[in-house]
């Protein structure tokens, strides 16, 4: 920047209070923050990508075990949670619009709805996890091979028409559940962090913090929330759907 422009800027010095002094304009500040948020999300994509890759490699290696183990998931709970999460992404997107157009009560409503839908998602996840605990499908904690060695005694396995697996293959179902808990657990952790931030944002939104023209925080949180939605958009088919017919 040349001296003359610096002086010119000094002269009219009329920028909003939320513009940091090291940015030329509010737009530059918003673009830089948006760029930074995307860089963070890219590291998150790489992180979840590692888990997805591990899942695909082991599914390829221990295919019969992964098919039988995935039959233990309830596709309807998964579908319900997909609907809940997509709806929460929609309410979040509407929240961003409310912030941009300075609709304070609308923003508070959207944030509360997103917060509640996040809790519903975790509630359904809890139901699913407790089923796994009851059937001893949690890896490392008295893991039971019963559903895979004797599928006729297991309701879900019978419904899917599973044949008994040999012992060495049945043991690899534990790996499926390890990856299931690692992936959905890490996803749920992201949801919990998001819900906590939403709780904080609801209070600030009620105080009118995001409806005065400075919408960066709401927008970037929206990016985070949609990213968590995208992770689930891939977890759902990979864990619940793609092995339904394979036997």
């Amino acid at each position, binding site marked *: 920047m040349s001296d003359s422009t610096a002086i010119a800027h000094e002269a009219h010095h009329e*920028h*909003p209070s939320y513009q940091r002094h090291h940015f*030329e*304009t*509010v*737009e*530059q500040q*918003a*673009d830089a923050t*948006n*760029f930074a948020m*995307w*860089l963070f*999300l*890219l590291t998150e*994509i*790489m992180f979840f*990508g590692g888990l*997805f*890759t591990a899942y*695909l*490699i082991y599914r*390829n*290696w*221990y295919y019969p075990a992964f098919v039988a183990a995935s039959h233990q998931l309830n*596709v309807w709970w998964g*579908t319900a949670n*997909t*609907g809940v999460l*997509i*709806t929460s*992404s*929609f309410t*979040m*997107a*509407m929240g*961003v*619009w409310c912030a*941009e*157009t*300075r*609709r304070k009560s609308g923003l508070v409503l959207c944030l509360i709805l997103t917060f509640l839908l996040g809790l519903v998602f975790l509630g359904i996840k809890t139901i699913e996890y407790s089923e796994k605990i009851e059937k001893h499908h949690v890896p490392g904690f008295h893991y039971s091979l019963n559903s895979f060695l004797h599928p006729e005694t297991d309701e879900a396995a019978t419904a899917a028409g599973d044949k008994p697996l040999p012992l060495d293959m049945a043991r690899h179902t534990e790996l499926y559940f390890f990856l299931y808990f690692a992936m959905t657990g890490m996803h749920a952790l992201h949801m919990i962090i998001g819900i906590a931030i939403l709780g904080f944002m609801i209070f600030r939104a009620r105080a009118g913090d995001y409806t005065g*023209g400075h*919408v960066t925080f709401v927008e970037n949180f*929206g990016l985070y929330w*949609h*990213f968590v*939605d*995208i992770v689930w*958009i*891939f977890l*759902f*088919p*990979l864990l*619940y*759907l*793609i092995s*339904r*017919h*394979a036997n």
Partner: protein
Amino acid sequence: MSDPTKHAPEHAAVHGEHEHHVTPPIVYIVIFATLLVFTALTVGASFVEMGVFNPIVAIAIGVVKATLVVLFFMGVKYSTKLTKLTVGAGLFTFLVLIGMTLADYFSRAWGRW
């Protein structure tokens, strides 16, 4: 303050390659409905026996849904060139890492033990 839809500061148009884009609710509503339709489609498709195409269809629908979320909910379609390049470069690197790793594991004879 009188006009609630005008939020950009007065000097917004002077600098920068774009004015802050506000996506109208109708876009979000259409995308939301489309995402729900695709969710129903992918669940429906999982009940149809398609052999090797079951996973392919499921992943393809997932990719379409994710693309809609990135372009519209996350607003990449209306964002700066810098953001578009960042997202594109990230996706490319991700696909290289995943693609190379999977190609290696699936093609070696070190196989199934």
